[in-house]
């Protein structure tokens, strides 16, 4: 193993090192600001190191990891999102009881796991990354362990994630048993080289692996945990579960299925089609029935993962770029939306009932405008990133003529509009009764860090929505080149 090989893993080392540094710092001196500061420095260094590493790519580091421009792009996405979530967590946990410092160790570890996932080229690193991520998430979900809902969320996530990991392992074992390799690229070679391999076992293995993916991405029918976790977990953690953990998983999904070529199995394609349709329809219809904003976001994230699957199903380079673009837009939007929920929550409870948002625009116009922008982006309305993303996904679908999926996407997203509009309408209602009871319990001061994150996200949202050429160019020259 050459020195440059290890050198290309610099971002991972920095993330790992930062988590240790924060842990030691917490042991020496308990200070929220210090922990946050160290975490942010670590993340910023890791982000900067991506450019240091970039000239050396693509490079296979051991049999397990590959550092190519695709991996670097997604690492950048993971690190930047974690950065935003750390700032939001600071705003959130300042208002809560208990010791918030260890949270940042866990966030860094989770980011590390995600970064390993996006660089995996082998089942072993896949599973390692997944477990690093999941174990950190169990603790993160239950971080406010004296409260009922976070605890419930933590336990639920633990049980379901552990069992889905078992499915995943079994699937990997089946494929290994049949083909004798764990390397994604080798799987493709073996598939073509050994036509005698048992299709039944391979399909069973693929099905079990899809189960594992489906759980992490909260695709129907593996979605049952999502609303409870979103509702129970602290808002910034929910944002992490919704974005970083899903995004990293999707990046891996793309790599695994495109590299191993198993995407082209008729049965696998069919399964993904069914899952995508079910996710879009069920996600959107169930979201319509919620009155809790975090649960709405949970169900809508199910639907959004269904949309991304439409692009995934399209296949080819356009699909990779469309998926990536969609994920970037989804990250910006979802972190923004949870950011608003974070900003409005106080030490008593989360601001997650639609009633909390009634007339928000007349009391907190800026925050409400940001939330409106995020919701409209989720709904795919122009001038926001979500519009271009949805456009791109439909473009990918149309290019591959998967019309059924495109139509389901269109029709179900109209249902989606309905519940986003419901929240928007609530924020702008009560025009004539503005003096009446501004629920004072939900009027925290806007913290500087959180406000900064929301401002940046909103600018990004509009910028990507109005002038997507830059982002497309970046994606094209990194992600598009790699797969």
């Amino acid at each position, binding site marked *: 193993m050459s020195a440059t090989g290890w050198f290309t893993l610099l971002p991972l080392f920095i993330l790992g090192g930062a988590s240790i540094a924060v842990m030691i710092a917490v042991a020496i001196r308990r200070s929220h600001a210090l922990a946050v500061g160290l975490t942010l420095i670590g993340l910023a260094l890791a982000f900067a190191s991506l450019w240091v590493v970039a000239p050396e790519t693509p490079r296979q580091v051991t049999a397990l990891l590959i550092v190519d421009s695709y991996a670097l792009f997604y690492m950048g996405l993971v690190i930047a999102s974690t950065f935003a979530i750390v700032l939001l967590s600071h705003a959130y946990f300042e208002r809560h009881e208990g010791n918030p410092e260890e949270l940042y160790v866990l966030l860094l570890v989770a980011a590390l796991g995600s970064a390993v996932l996006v660089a995996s080229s082998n089942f072993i690193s896949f599973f390692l990354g997944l477990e690093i991520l999941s174990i950190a998430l169990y603790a993160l979900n239950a971080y406010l362990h004296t409260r009922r809902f976070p605890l419930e969320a933590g336990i639920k996530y633990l049980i379901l994630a552990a069992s889905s990991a078992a499915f995943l392992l079994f699937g990997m074992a089946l494929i290994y048993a049949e083909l004798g390799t764990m390397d994604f690229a080798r799987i493709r070679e073996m598939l073509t080289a050994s036509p005698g391999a048992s299709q039944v076992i391979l399909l069973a293995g693929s099905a079990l692996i899809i189960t594992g993916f489906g759980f992490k991405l909260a695709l129907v029918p593996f979605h049952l945990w999502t609303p409870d976790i979103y509702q129970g977990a602290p808002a910034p953690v929910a944002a992490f579960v919704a974005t970083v953990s899903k995004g990293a998983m999707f990046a891996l999904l793309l790599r695994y299925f495109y590299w191993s070529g198993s995407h082209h199995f008729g049965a696998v394609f069919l399964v993904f089609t069914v899952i995508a349709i079910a996710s879009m329809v069920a996600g959107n219809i169930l979201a319509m029935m919620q009155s809790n904003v975090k649960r709405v976001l949970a169900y809508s994230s199910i639907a959004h993962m269904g949309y991304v699957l439409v692009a995934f199903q399209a296949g080819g380079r356009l699909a990779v770029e469309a998926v990536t673009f969609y994920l970037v837009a989804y990250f910006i939007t979802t972190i923004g939306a949870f950011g608003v929920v974070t900003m409005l929550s106080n030490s008593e409870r989360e601001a997650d009932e639609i009633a909390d948002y009634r007339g928000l625009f*007349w009391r907190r116009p800026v925050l409400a405008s940001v939330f409106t922008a995020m919701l*409209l982006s989720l709904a795919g*309305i*122009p*001038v926001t990133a979500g*519009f271009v993303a949805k*456009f*791109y996904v*439909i*473009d990918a679908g*149309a*290019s591959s003529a998967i019309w059924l999926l*495109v*139509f389901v996407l*269109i*029709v179900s*997203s*109209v249902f989606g*509009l*309905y519940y986003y*509009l*419901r929240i928007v*309408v609530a924020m*702008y*209602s009560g*025009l*004539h009764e503005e003096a009446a009871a501004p629920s004072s319990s939900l009027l925290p001061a806007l913290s500087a860090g959180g406000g900064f994150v929301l401002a940046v996200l909103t600018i990004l949202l509009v910028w990507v929505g109005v*002038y*997507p*050429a830059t982002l*497309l*160019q970046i994606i*094209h020259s990194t992600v598009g080149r790699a797969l």
Partner: protein
Amino acid sequence: MILIWLIAIPLIAGVLAWFTGKWSKQAPRWISLIAASIDFVLGLVLWSRFGSEMRLAGNPRWVEQVNWSWVPQLGIRFHLALDGLSLLLLMLTFLLGIISVLASWREIQDKVGFFHLNLMWILAGISGVFLAVDLFLFYFAWELMLIPMFFLIAVWGHENRVYAAVKFFLFTQLSGLLMLISILALYVIHHHLTGVYTFEYESLLGTRLAPHTALLIMLGFFVAFAVKLPMFPLHPWLPDAHTEAPTAGSIILAGLLLKTGAYGLLRFVLPLFPHAAHRFAPVALVLAVIGILYGAVMAYGQTDLKRLVAYTSVSHLGFVLLGIFTFNSWALDGALMGMIAHGISTGALFMITGQLQERTHTREAGRLGGLWATMPRMGGAALFFAMGSMGLPGLGDFVGEFLVLIGTYEAHLLGLTIATSIGILFSTFYALRFVQAGFHGPNSNNWSVQDLVPREVVMLVPMVAILIWLGIYPQPIFNTFRSTRQKIEQYASLHVGPQQAAQSGRAATTIDTLPSPPWGRGWLAAGVFTSRREPGLRPPKVAYAPELQRRSGSCPQAGEGVAEIVQKESVKSAQSADLIPENTK
């Protein structure tokens, strides 16, 4: 650049209005009024500068354009262009923009700044729709205008506003997404054929489509436009949205938003899919006539005056749809005139009901009545616009309806012509009922309210004047529309469609080649419509598709400077100008 300003001015004014709204209620109103007026004046400048060009046959398609690179990776360009059709509709947009600012002067007292932000942004979005000739940009503007409209209804509307706003949004959004699929299908097919990714309108014009595919793609566009129009049976959002919206919202909905549907049919459906449009025409025509009759009957049955006016839109836009799918010059002219006149007369009727509600706090026919005694000036105005709406000769609506009827008759659609004429008869009922319910009869509720104030008179007088002008001397409108109309006809007459490219020797259906009935000529000769002969127009013979595709083969690169692109485009458009009328010179 002037086209950019047309859109940018309302956008900027909206933001300014929002900020100033915190301190003053008057500032946003004045800012919006000034912005809309500047745009209107800019429109007049454009009209006076290019008016003469537009009336000539065979001139360039666009008289003015802006063409910037936007998302080169996907072949998306920021391409705005102006021709006669867009100019006329822009003038209507800014006129009604001014009117709706004035109409909300006293009605809107809450959150004045935010209201005007929405109002101005709707105007910007609608201008974008009328100017965009890149299909992505068009869709962008198409969706963009909905959001502020949604807020306008949902925040400042009447009792049932949220329901109406959401219904409006969902209808238009679903249909818009269907159009998006169609746009992308066209884009992808065009790429398969030529290897070029482009959303450019003129490049996509010649795309060869299998008949079945063309019909499906056309339907996507058609549904989006038919919902906006609204065509029976896609109209259920309309009565609610119009009724619940604040006055300015109703004026803009009826006057402008519905027109974007008709505009889309004229600009995109007919030229892009001429064959499919012909195949589909019987259905569209029948639905148009059903819409005319249905809208009229429903309007007559309403007790809510605003709802009554709302239903008349279904009827009037039925005429427009009928005119568009009749495909001949008369009908197309009639459709355009119908669009403009309906914008003004219905806008005015909404304004009057708004003023009534402001004073009496009711729109119920049963609770009104006898108002003439207390406000004769408003009664007179209401009577005038109701007469316009029912198609009284001498007013703009009549010209539109009459031309559509001639066109339909010419196209040998006798049954439809007769049914449509019955529709006109119905319109008399609802128009008279509107006046009678509001203003005639005994003043049994003892209303005593203020008559029109000077501000309201200032709003109504120009509308009266314009409606009369359109009614007795509509020729300037037709002149401005002529060049565009001829291009639409050339596509719609199927002689330049790709399949027929080789055998396009036959005459296009124009006024001059149609055998006109003597009474029609006589009527024209009476000088009401002067100079309708167009000796310059001869049947086009065009080698069509290959040329278009060659032309579209240049998608500018990312690094290209704007100046270069504009220059290049102007050269290109100068070449493309010769495309169709080449052999007519």
